[in-house]
């Protein structure tokens, strides 16, 4: 049932993929597992997106039209959870699976069987989460941040299922990250020193470290919830000496690094694409690495910027404000490096480049609003309004999601051997670009004007821009069907891709043929 990969050159294909369903169920191949992750993530993106459509449809006009408030809250919670844990994170893990071994010149991930386990936990975990929709009392309805005591004493019974599903999601993430770290630390081809590693690999090394550090903390948080709900403890209950705010500290100790987990790999991707299509070596490689490392380290000491209004002592508020603002420095370094890479380059605008440029611009806008949020006195006005919603959708949708789409367009010729349809790709880009801005830009305004988040109905002065935002959301949502179509079309066929695919591409993955053989680098390549 197992075999050794031969290191001879004569026949790389004799261990090609197995046939049928068991290929996917039993696979230990990093490319198969990457594919599974990517499709899973896409499915979750559609489900979470459909929930966002319910939200936007209800908010199309003031008044309650299509759902009841309690169902709205369930949609909101599941939308947040599914997008974060089901769409963005697995997509990045999928990309890591496909790319990290190829980029460092390894034959596969370090621990292939565990790799398969990390993936297959996810469908089960999300099945458990989604099945709560059909339970008595409904699905979790306390927001993706599940603050106690709304998520403990006052939660529907399905919260127990939610807790356990978070546990196994966490286990999956930890195993996945251990795999990535070990692959990077232990399986680099000879000559591939740390400071020669492609930036995507670097970004994932740091991300994996963050994941291993914070997922267990999340597990601890939900475990305490479980105990409070069912076994009489009082961690989050003042009557017994605990504190609901303790929950928030623990949650955000996880939660803030979590948001960087969703952006660091995007930084890596953007660096590759901008470099390629500018036909010019990336500016400031070393500072890119240091910037990501600093962001990761700082991310552990800024969590309470989500809690400026919970009544922290003044010293704490000041500390967290300053620490948060500091993150703008390394992030700025990255933005400046990207711009300087383009400066005096020789640029063309294929779809991946379009997405990457939109990523840089719109992410920076999201970063600016993040910086505004970090200003504590002003956050008293912004907090829990649509201004926050606008901020995080700017960093997440044209941030993380755009980077993932850019990555798909960029590497899909390598995965399938076929070029995607450039015309459709550009169409997809422009529809998404317009859609995303029409959806989320006005949310800055309604937020400033005073519309709280997490409400199913709002006062009349917010009506106009909510309607526009909803229209934008439908446009953006519908354009993703086009994306699905483009991907399927490319998988089915298309113009054959060359090994290097792009004119300016650099890196080991472009040295193997397209599609990449089932097993690459069974003998490590030489890097110099």
């Amino acid at each position, binding site marked *: 049932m197992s075999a050794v990969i031969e290191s001879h050159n004569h026949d790389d294909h004799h261990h090609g993929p197995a046939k049928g369903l068991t290929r996917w169920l039993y696979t230990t191949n990093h490319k198969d597992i990457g594919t599974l992750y990517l499709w899973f993530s896409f499915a979750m993106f559609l489900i979470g997106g459909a929930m966002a459509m319910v939200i936007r449809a209800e908010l199309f006009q*003031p008044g309650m*039209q299509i759902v009841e*408030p*309690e169902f709205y809250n369930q949609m909101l919670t599941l939308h947040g959870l599914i997008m974060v844990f089901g769409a963005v994170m697995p997509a990045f893990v999928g990309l890591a699976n496909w790319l990290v071994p190829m980029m460092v010149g390894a034959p596969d991930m370090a621990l292939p069987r565990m790799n398969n386990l990390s993936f297959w936990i996810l469908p089960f975990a999300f099945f458990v989460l989604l099945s709560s929709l059909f339970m008595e*009392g*409904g699905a979790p*309805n*306390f927001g993706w941040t599940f*603050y106690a005591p*709304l998520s403990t004493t*006052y939660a*529907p*019974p399905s919260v127990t299922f939610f807790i356990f599903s978070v546990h196994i999601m966490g286990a999956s993430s930890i195993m996945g990250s251990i795999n990535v770290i070990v692959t990077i630390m232990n399986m680099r081809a000879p000559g591939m020193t740390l400071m020669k590693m492609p930036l995507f690999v670097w970004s994932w090394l740091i991300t994996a470290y963050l994941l291993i550090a914070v997922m267990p903390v999340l597990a601890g948080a939900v475990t305490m919830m479980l105990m409070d709900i069912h076994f009489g403890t009082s961690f989050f209950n*003042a*009557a017994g000496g605990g504190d609901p*705010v303790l929950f928030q500290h623990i949650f955000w100790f996880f939660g803030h690094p979590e948001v960087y987990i969703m952006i660091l790999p995007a930084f890596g991707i953007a660096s590759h694409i901008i470099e390629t299509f500018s*036909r*010019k070596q*990336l500016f*400031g*490689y070393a500072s890119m690495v240091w910037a990501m490392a600093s962001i990761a380290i700082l991310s552990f000491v800024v969590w309470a910027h989500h809690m400026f*209004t*919970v*009544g922290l002592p*003044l010293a704490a508020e000041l500390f967290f404000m*300053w620490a948060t*603002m*500091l993150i703008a*420095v390394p992030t*700025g*370094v990255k933005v*400046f490096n990207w*711009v300087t890479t*383009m*400066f*005096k380059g*020789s*640029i063309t*605008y294929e779809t991946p480049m379009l997405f990457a*440029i939109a990523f*840089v*611009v719109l992410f*920076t806008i999201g970063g*600016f609003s993040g910086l*505004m949020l970090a*200003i*504590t*006195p*002003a956050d*008293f*006005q*912004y907090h*829990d309004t649509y201004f926050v919603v606008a901020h995080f959708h700017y960093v997440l949708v044209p941030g993380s999601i755009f980077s993932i789409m850019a990555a798909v367009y960029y590497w899909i010729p390598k995965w399938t051997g076929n070029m995607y349809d450039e015309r459709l790709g550009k169409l997809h880009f422009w529809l998404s670009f317009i859609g995303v801005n029409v959806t989320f830009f006005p949310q800055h305004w309604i937020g*400033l*004007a005073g519309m*709280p988040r997490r409400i199913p*109905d*709002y*006062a009349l*002065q917010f009506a106009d821009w909510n309607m526009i935002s909803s229209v934008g959301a439908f446009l953006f949502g519908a354009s993703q069907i086009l994306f699905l179509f483009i991907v399927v079309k490319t998988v089915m066929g298309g113009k054959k891709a060359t090994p290097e695919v792009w004119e300016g591409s650099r890196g080991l993955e472009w040295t193997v043929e397209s599609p990449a053989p089932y097993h690459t680098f069974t003998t490590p390549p030489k890097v110099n």
Partner: protein
Amino acid sequence: MFKKATRSANHKLLAGLTILFSSNTFAAWNDLNMTEGVTAISKEVFDLHMLIFWICVAIGLVVFGIMFYSMFAFTKKKNPNPATFHENTKVELAWTVVPFLILVFMAIPASNTLTKIYDDTEGDINIQVVGYQWKWQYKYLEDGIDFFSNLTTDWDEIYNKTPKGEFYLEEVDEAVVIPVGKKIRFLITANDVIHSWWMPDFAIKQDAIPGFINTAWTIVDEPGIYRGKCTELCGKNHGFMPVVVKVVTQDEYDAWVQDKKDAAFRMAELTEKDWSTAELTERGEGVYLKNCVACHQVNGQGIAGIFPNLAGSDIVLNNKAKNIEILMEGVQGAAMQSFANQLSEVDMASVITYTRQAWGNAENGDGEIVVPKDIVEYKKPKV
């Protein structure tokens, strides 16, 4: 100085854009920015917001300017041979240090304002604000005034059966009343889950944490009615939990305080009165619609799995003592809170009577009613 300058520049820009937008149906441009509010602090916060905003805009212009320039000037067509430089320590150092200095420049006013907000001394008037699912309670600690503030927007408006009024979702039955020019200190807490008391015009947003007390203060100089909302997800009706503050002159305030005290006295008289079932049921319906429908629904049937059905509940049908106890004590660890402090004896008796009479409960159960004296009796210390 810089602050003033940006503010007036800002006003000019706003004015220009307002003209641009005023011809159509969209909300005025001013409605799209943070409110300046009516207190010294809120204006300071607004200035801070604008300062940071313009700094970000300026940085954005520079960064995106260079980027767009590169995008047009250095296409493959125009520049077929890319340059080969890929690092420059001096430049990299500069764009690390300069943003850092900009940040320091922002952090100073921000820290100053924050320190001002954190003045924790007592107020001239101290009001305890308590969040409940889904209403606010206000207790005036000096005057002993104590009342609840509920949303008054009709559910028919919310469900689009009747047209929406001007203050749709922003109106309450009883606003907090405060006098101008006095330092008011709010002691904010909650009874069940976390809520958050937000009054944009005073730049106050403080979470109401059950079991703990957060404070906030304000001095308002302009009389008026100010509207805000609960801003922490607190369950089903989180969106229907407005905050309304009425700022009045000192004289009006004094009159209002006297009025509240008299009302409490009149209530005591009502308690003594002999009530008929019909009277109680009628009054009780009003109380029920205000306090109970959020969970148990108009038809009493609640929501399966979360809020129990009162139409046909054994306690409501046949167990008068337990029924009173639940209303007075609440149910530990459930959304059912104690109403002992929220309802007067009269309202308590009438709402229980109403639930025991309505929806066919009178026919299916023992039909016993509860009169205000029962509640007075219940409240007496038990020996």
